[in-house]
């Protein structure tokens, strides 16, 4: 990372460290939209961080933009930042206009057929969008980017916030995951043929969650090591006990593996969404999350089980994110399918190319 890139990440980290307090997170969980925080984030230009320069962005290295996503997760920032970055990337690729507020995207699950899949048809005054989009992150609050089938092939559309019929939902961290029902007409200039990037929405979502999990895990490790150095029992810090050290070493190993896996995802997201590294990353970070959260809570004892302690802001996110956009098993099976296709003698070449 160059110095300038480093500054972008550090500036974001400073903002998050100063502004994202437990009180702010709790208020967001209770349903209030942190407008001031959003404005501060927007002032840094972060929502546009993945938009290429020729499309009006800043020309930031995409890996730096994704490092900001990881950093945001390290602070459990209660905003749809990852979603906005990617949705704006898609809108830019499609040549559609981007809003100044938050934008999210809907990725239909690929594991099960949709109940009421999105359809879009030309109408006299634009395009008519119908269908059902379950569990859209911040679906009530943000504009929503969707890809819907049409007679002319897949189309991408931006639906302004407030237009869908919303059934509010959430995940374990009380991040909004709203069910949206569409039956509305969009102006012609908010719909376009879906660009190639928009055809891999589940991969993109999985890659973003993998990156976020790596960031949250880094914080879980930090909190756990710090607590183990401070908490005294039997006359010494619990981190001096070998049993605790061994667990923290495992936590560090899982965090390191998740970090490496998330880097694979970031590189794929920055380039052409190669599904194999993304599948590996989502599965590996998900597995790390399971093991790491268990250890972190064990090390923290009862205090870590309280609402007052901040550990749960990270562990609840990890427990939620590991199952979003496909769980470990889903993605492991995708990797396994690639291995089956490559065959026994193609396994090593597959590994060195990943």
């Amino acid at each position, binding site marked *: 990372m160059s110095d300038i890139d480093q500054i972008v990440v550090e500036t974001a980290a400073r903002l998050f460290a100063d502004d994202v307090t437990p009180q702010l997170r709790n208020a967001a969980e209770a349903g209030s939209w942190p407008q001031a925080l959003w404005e501060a984030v927007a002032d840094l230009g972060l929502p546009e961080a993945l938009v290429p320069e020729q499309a009006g962005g800043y020309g930031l290295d995409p890996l730096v933009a994704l490092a900001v996503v990881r950093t945001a997760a390290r602070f459990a920032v209660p905003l749809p930042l990852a979603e906005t970055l990617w949705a704006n990337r898609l809108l830019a690729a499609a040549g559609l206009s981007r809003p100044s507020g938050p934008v999210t995207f809907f990725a239909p699950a690929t594991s099960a057929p949709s109940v009421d899949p999105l359809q879009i048809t030309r109408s006299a005054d634009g395009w008519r969008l119908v269908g059902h989009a379950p569990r859209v992150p911040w679906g009530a609050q943000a504009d929503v980017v969707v890809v819907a089938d049409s007679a002319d092939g897949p189309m991408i559309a931006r639906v302004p916030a407030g237009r869908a019929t919303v059934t509010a939902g959430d995940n374990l961290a009380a991040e909004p995951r709203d069910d949206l029902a569409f039956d509305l007409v969009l102006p012609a200039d908010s719909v376009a043929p879906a660009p190639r990037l928009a055809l891999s929405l589940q991969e993109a979502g999985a890659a973003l969650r993998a990156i976020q999990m790596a960031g949250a895990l880094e914080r879980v490790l930090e909190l756990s090591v710090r607590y183990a150095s401070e908490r005294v029992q039997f006359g010494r810090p619990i981190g001096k006990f070998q049993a605790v050290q061994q667990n923290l070493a495992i936590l560090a190993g899982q965090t390191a593996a998740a970090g490496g896996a998330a880097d694979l995802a970031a590189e794929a997201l920055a380039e052409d969404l190669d599904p194999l590294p993304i599948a590996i990353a989502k599965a590996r970070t998900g597995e790390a999350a399971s093991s790491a959260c268990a250890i972190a809570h064990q090390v923290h004892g009862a205090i870590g089980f309280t609402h007052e302690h901040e550990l749960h802001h990270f562990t609840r996110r990890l427990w939620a994110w590991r199952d979003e956009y496909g769980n470990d098993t889903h993605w492991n099976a995708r*990797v396994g399918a690639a291995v089956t296709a490559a065959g026994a003698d193609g396994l090593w070449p597959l590994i060195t190319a990943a």
Partner: protein
Amino acid sequence: MTETSITFPPPPADTLSDLRAEVRDFLATALANRKPRDRARTWTGFDADFSAQMGERGWIGMTWPKRYGGHERSALERYVVLEEMLAAGAPVAAHWIADRQSGPLLLKAGTEEQRQAILPRIAAGQCFFCIGMSEPDSGSDLAAARTRATPVEGGFRVNGTKLWTTYGHKSHYMILFCRTGAADDRHGGTSQLLVDLSTPGITIRPIADLSGEHHFNEVVFEDVFLPSSAVIGALGDGWNQVMGELAFERSGPERFLSSFILLVEAVRALGQSPSVAAQAAVGRLTGQIVTLRRLSRSVAGLLQRGENPALQAALVKDQGALLEQEIPEVVRTILAVEPSLRSPVDLSNVLAHIVLAAPCFSLRGGTREILRGIIARGLGLR
């Protein structure tokens, strides 16, 4: 509080596809008739002819200066050759220790005479080494070593017993870690000596491992005379030298590929239509290898830049051993096969070998508990 972030920078770009292709071509021919059961013994597979071929190709001592028979190639080029060898199950044991550990030690700390006499022969794949660290009462606690070199006219007289000496019976030299100073100076009183194993007074006795195979040994020294010129580095510097050696050797591809051939055979046995559960299990292991390989290459990049990533290396080795030991456990849950060393079926045979070898993956080169202690220190807990 010190920040506990552990950085693994992006590994250097893999621009070595020509070298990789060259190695793959070579292996396709050289190992054409090597059966999976033999491939499963990669870094315990001893084959002097194969090592000589490697030497001819310039694939031993790759990073060493040309004046010592080396090839002045980068650590990353060496990494590519190593991982290709291991992934193909090539028998690398004969030259492995000399290439990885003993040669670099001589290069760093050896006398000019030692370097000139020995390094070119190692690089040619004709000179094999073993490591004399462990003893009956000194395993993890290496500083408890008792073997002693007592100064005598013109050199030392050595007495003591080394244990678990891998391929001691087929090696030309040992690097002996022993006491040369005051008994109560745990670290400062130790040195490393270069031992020609044909020296009188050395007895090498085989120890069979739990599967009956012979690779490690007991090596007994009885009044063995070693010349003063046998000292490697400075007298009394043994501890520091050994620690440097270990830190560098904990993150290579051998730290996560020991069971790789079993995974290959499992994929072969599963064929073209495995169950989803089997596919997910294989996919998971593959993803773990890809991830660890990335971390391991990241460490290689750090080493190439002259940094000392001891913490990262310990993390890679700990995670790698977990993976290597999990592969047989996963394979036996997704494929109905009874392991047997005498089975004519490749999968059964390879599984048998790996099940029986697996315990040592978290012992050799620093036990799991010792590694985790190093990690804890790196985290600032000790």
